[in-house]
């Protein structure tokens, strides 16, 4: 089975690149912030430096653990779901569900371990860069040396390997249990249902977000800056909760117009809920997290005006933007990654449409309509998640629910999200249209 797993990895490089990329970048991100904890826990450090580093490593490290765990689970699940056809073929060739689960698990474990190992140098570099910025801002003394140790390695390997393996186990068992014929048809049009597991996860996450919301409002005013540790999680929890409910949410999407492309797009929104809900989640997460966290920094800057010398405030701001930027960049890559994978999986569908008489232009128009509906819905939900973080934090810090900051950054983030969510599927679709239609219909 391990040999089969290895040869499958070799032959399906393209399909695994997406999963590998998510695990590799995720591990690097977690390791970067984990190494701040390692550095902060070094014996003999002055108390102020140690506190800054452990708080930062704890708070931002906590966010990134959550996000990377989520990314590992979704990309792995998506990667395995797209192999339903291959799994069906192996099953029809006599592979037992147990053998299949072991094969898929072996592939994913190997991929996760290699990705995390290769992420070490990137994590070291990221950790050093952030430490340098913290030292520039004066929050940590310049003589502190960067330590990359057990916490960075443990968190980096732990979160990627465990999340990926957990997701692989569930997805593989599910893929292996389905009957051969079912998995053949399911490969053609996967539908997503709001399973009991998804619903329970969603409700728990929403409850968690509500508790943090209440805590930020009640105890936040006394915590000051540290209220970020509470408020910063609300948008992430809310976004992941909305992702859990994605199968229901995508059913509510609407497309205007009466042309062939619009009719097809409407049909797809109804029937292809599987692909669409996996694409909705990263849009909500990226926008919610990026807007929420960037706005937190703005609220902070307003609240702490006059408390630090001008130069100090600037440096703290730069530091916060770099940290938020690292997390947002990871989520943006996750977004591109997910959209590219789920669009590339529609090669066969596009080819069949062309055989039925669809011009390349009509297929692009159909994808553009679907993607716009998805991007707009994701943007609205993402802004909702961001508001859940910003409003209570603004109340905690400034006594006013409505934060006072310029709308430039949220507007730019929304623009970036819409661009990425539209351009990625369109570029991938265009590249599949270059092939003659018949080669793409033969699996």
């Amino acid at each position: 089975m391990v040999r089969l797993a290895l040869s499958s990895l070799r032959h399906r490089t393209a399909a695994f690149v997406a999963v590998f990329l998510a695990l590799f970048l995720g591990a690097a991100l977690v390791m970067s912030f984990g190494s701040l904890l390692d550095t902060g826990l070094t014996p003999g450090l002055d108390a102020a430096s140690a506190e800054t580093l452990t708080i930062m490593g704890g708070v931002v490290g906590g966010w990134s653990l959550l996000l990377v765990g989520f990314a590992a689970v979704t990309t792995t699940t998506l990667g395995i779901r797209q192999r339903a056809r291959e799994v069906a073929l192996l099953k029809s060739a006599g592979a037992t569900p147990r053998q299949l689960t072991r094969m898929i698990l072996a592939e994913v474990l190997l991929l996760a371990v290699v990705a995390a190992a290769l992420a070490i140098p990137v994590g070291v570099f990221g950790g050093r860069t952030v430490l340098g910025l913290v030292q520039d801002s004066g929050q940590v003394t310049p003589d502190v040396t960067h330590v990359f140790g057990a916490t960075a390695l443990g968190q980096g390997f732990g979160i990627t390997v465990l999340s990926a393996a957990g997701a692989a186990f569930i997805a593989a068992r599910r893929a292996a249990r389905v009957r051969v014929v079912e998995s053949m048809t399911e490969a053609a049009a996967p539908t997503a249902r709001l399973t009991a597991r998804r619903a329970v996860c969603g409700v728990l996450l929403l409850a968690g977000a509500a508790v943090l919301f209440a805590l930020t409002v009640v105890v936040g005013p006394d915590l000051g800056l540290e209220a970020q540790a509470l408020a910063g999680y609300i948008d992430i929890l809310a976004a992941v909760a909305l992702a859990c409910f994605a199968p229901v949410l995508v059913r509510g999407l609407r497309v205007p117009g009466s042309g062939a492309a619009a009719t097809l797009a409407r049909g797809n929104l109804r029937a292809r809920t599987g692909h669409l809900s996996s694409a909705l989640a990263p849009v909500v997460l990226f926008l919610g997290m990026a807007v929420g966290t960037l706005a937190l920094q703005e609220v902070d800057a307003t609240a702490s005006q006059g408390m630090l010398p001008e130069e100090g405030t600037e440096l703290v701001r730069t530091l916060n933007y770099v940290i938020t930027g690292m997390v947002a960049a990871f989520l943006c890559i996750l977004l591109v990654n997910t959209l590219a994978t789920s669009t590339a999986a529609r090669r066969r569908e596009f080819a069949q449409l062309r055989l039925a008489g669809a011009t390349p232009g009509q297929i692009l128009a159909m994808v553009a309509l679907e993607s716009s509906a998805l991007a707009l819905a994701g943007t609205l939900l993402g802004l909702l998640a961001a508001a859940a973080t910003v409003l209570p934090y603004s109340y905690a810090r400034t006594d006013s629910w409505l934060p006072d900051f310029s709308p430039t950054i949220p507007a730019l983030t929304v623009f970036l999200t819409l661009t990425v969510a539209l351009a990625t599927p369109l570029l991938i679709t265009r590249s599949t249209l270059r092939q003659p239609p018949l080669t793409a219909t033969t699996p």
Partner: protein
Amino acid sequence: MTQDILRLEGLRKVHGDAATGVVALSDVSLTLPSGTFTAVMGPSGSGKSTLLQCAAGLDSPTAGRVFVAGREMTGDETELTVFRREHIGFVFQQFNLLPSLTVLDNVTLPLRLAGKRPDEARARDILTKVGLGDRIGHRPPALSGGQQQRTAIARALVTEPSVVFADEPTGALDTRGAREVLNLLQQAVRVYGRTVVMVTHDPVAAAYADSVVFLADGAIVGRMADPTPDAVAERLTRLGDDVARAGRAVSE
């Protein structure tokens, strides 16, 4: 009046590099009159699928020209698509229906794509004629192979194309499903005057056609009018032996 609906002039197709590549079609010229049912047969590797794909505008020939209903098939992918949409219907071994659309929506899809108001009454009528009047709201995965292929035939006929190309249309079906599909194709020609070109390896299927074109090594090596399964099978066996003999002669 019988008009030539399909004309192939010196079709040549080389897969891969022009110098070292595999020659799939060497120099095929063929003319088919309107309202005929032609089967294309040959040993595997004889180029019959390539011939169909080039003739249908799904693949571009290395050299040669294709005329459908007097117009040359040429242009970029968008122009070719519009041409195919107007003149050509397809039936494939793997049906190629869209799983997310109902049977009725699959059948009216080519009309919608052409920007026409889909005539649902007509689509229902065709679906009733192919025996699927009670299945129009179902999605393809819920249908049997034979029912899916009959849906594909209804879709191929709905635009009233000049030529319907069928590539091993019975390849994935059982005997009963295959018989129904072949009867429908025959009916499309005899009753409704369509033109059908069908690639098959099955002598029984070929016997439903008016004539058979035999292909070997990328060239037309014979034709047979009013085929019977036995005559076709016998001819095909001889063709296979010839190819094997030629292969031995080359290697000796």
